[in-house]
């Protein structure tokens, strides 16, 4: 099998450029936010101890939290070099726990939710779109269209609350939150895995429902031109069976949808961050909100960076997959 080397190099280059841009953005954005976390904490301490605290403590706090009054470019260089050494700093809220530790706890859960829900909604959405497209302009198509349009237009977090209310609060079929049952200890055991799947069910269901519409409509609109394409006409003219024709159209329509896949990683990430707070899922979403509330720059930046890297890597994998799936790109290795 040929490997599209140039394509991959190209993608890696793009990956690096975007990553660097995102890293810079990541440096700039939190610094835009006004306020000084050390001051806030210092104030609480002063109040709690009836003013019996030396002002030097503030400086000390600032030093501990890595807040710097150095010129911006110096801070930027320090930031880059720390990043290069894998040092994401220490969280202010959870002082003195390193940001990397927190991320190692939280990010896998978020990724788990994102990957699971994107995969499922990609699969179901494409199937639904295929169904609608193949039966286009019939009541079947209309049902699929209206369902997916409605799902796409309903505010995601409201959907989450409604689902939570129906299935967990009133139905009592699913747990209210968390990633696994508190009576089970984490480990690679069957009860644990079942518990994880079970707890992920509602959040995944919500994200799948709300992101399904995009896939369905995209697939439907992709497959319709494909069904009218020359190669489909020719296949029909050669007397191919309908399942053969459907699969040819589907294969060709799914490729452009795959580029949408990479974009949807970012979108789903957004959705997941919100859903996490609703389903009490221990991912990065809640940490992000806490970090912003407490002006926890290191944590904020760490989450931001990790999420971006996750999205970029996701994009990259999808791009590579695309390179392998679409022979027109694969060919460029020649």
């Amino acid at each position, binding site marked *: 099998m040929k490997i599209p080397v140039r394509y991959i190099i190209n993608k890696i280059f793009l990956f690096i450029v975007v990553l660097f841009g995102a890293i810079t953005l990541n440096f700039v954005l939190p610094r835009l936010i006004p306020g000084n976390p050390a001051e806030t904490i210092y104030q609480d301490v002063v109040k709690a101890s009836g003013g019996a605290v030396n002002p030097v403590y503030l400086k000390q706090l600032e030093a501990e939290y890595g807040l710097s009054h150095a010129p911006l470019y110096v801070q930027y260089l320090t930031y880059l070099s720390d990043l290069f050494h894998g040092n994401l700093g220490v969280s202010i809220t959870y002082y003195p726990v390193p940001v990397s530790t927190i991320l190692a706890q939280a990010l896998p859960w978020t990724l788990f939710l994102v990957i699971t829900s994107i995969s499922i909604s990609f699969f179901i959405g494409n199937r639904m779109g295929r169904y609608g497209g193949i039966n286009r302009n019939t009541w079947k198509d209309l049902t699929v269209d209206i369902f997916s349009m409605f799902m796409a237009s309903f505010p995601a977090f409201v959907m989450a609350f409604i689902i939570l209310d129906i299935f967990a609060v009133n139905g009592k079929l699913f747990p209210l939150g968390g990633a696994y049952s508190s009576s089970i200890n984490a480990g690679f055991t069957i009860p644990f895995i079942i518990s994880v799947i079970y707890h992920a069910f509602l959040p995944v269901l919500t994200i799948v429902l709300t992101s399904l519409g995009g896939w369905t409509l995209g697939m439907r609109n992709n497959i319709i031109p494909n069904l*009218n*394409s*020359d*190669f489909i*006409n*020719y*296949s*029909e*003219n*050669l*007397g*191919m*069976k309908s399942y*053969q024709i459907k699969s*040819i159209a589907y*294969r*060709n329509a799914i*490729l452009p949808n795959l580029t949408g896949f990479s974009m949807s990683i970012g979108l789903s990430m957004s959705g997941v961050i919100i859903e996490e707070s609703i389903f009490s899922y221990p991912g990065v979403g809640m940490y992000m909100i806490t970090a912003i509330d407490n002006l926890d720059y290191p944590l904020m930046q760490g989450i931001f960076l990790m999420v971006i890297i996750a999205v970029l890597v996701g994009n990259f994998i999808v791009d590579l997959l695309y390179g392998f*799936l*679409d*022979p*027109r790109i694969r*060919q460029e290795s020649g």
Partner: protein
Amino acid sequence: MSGNPVMKIRNLEVGYYSENGFNIIIHDLNLDVNEGRILGVAGESGSGKSTLAQAIYRSLKYPGEIRSGEIIFRGKDLLKMETQELRKMRAIDISFVPQAAMNALNPVKKILYQFYDVLIAHGKDPEENMERIRESVRMVRLDESILYNFPHELSGGMKQRTVIAMSLLLSPKLVILDEPTTGLDVLVEHDILKDIREIQRKTNITMIFITHDLSILYEMSDDIAMLYAGEIVEKGSHSQFLKNPMHPYTYLLTKSIPRIGVKRENIVKLKGNPTNYDPSNRGCQFITRCPYSESFCSESHPDLIESDEDDHLYRCMNFPAWRKKATI
């Protein structure tokens, strides 16, 4: 000279739905396709030649629709057939070489598997029929290695040859070629046409060859049907068309073809533009462009008239009068 017709088309009416209602493209068309010959169907834009090709093959899609008529192929009316029955006939009895061959192959599948698909569709085992695939590829003078390529790795000519090989894979009795060489380079086009002619001679397949390029049509066809505005205006053999055209359009069109060695002054200029079928025109459809028209031409619609020549039909009320005005 006339053979027995392998296909008979009777009173065919085809059109398209549009914002303005149903537009008739082909009007009351009757045509016999003689066995073992190449029937060339010629026409400029608007004549309905491609629509005809699709209608014959029943591959016309919405918004196109066949309104009425019969297409009798081996005693059966294709228009009355169930889709499954029709599907089973395709590629085995009747086959089709499409117009835009550049995009006729599935871009994400290797050629070999596209051949496989055809075999699977007709209940044949691909592995057992490998030799058949190889043979058909060789027939169109392609190297067997192309079987392991993706369509985009082939040049336009190779793709077109592949499509022809695929259409001929199951040795059909009748092949419809709809502008099979449009968009190809002149030299490639020439080669492919020669090869098609060669294959036809060898296998004696009946072909319907459709093109807008009159010179090529004349080069290729045994019989010719000239379409104008959705109607056959003349049908006859190659030599009848060149030597004894009975419809002014045929005559003028042939004369308007620039050829090496012909001076510009001697090339006929046909006034006006090709038109679609106009149902409001109760007279001859060609009347707007005909330099020889008489007042009666606009009064009634001319029928297809059989001439005294063998199998030579024409649709002109002014024949042979107009021929006197024209200098041949």
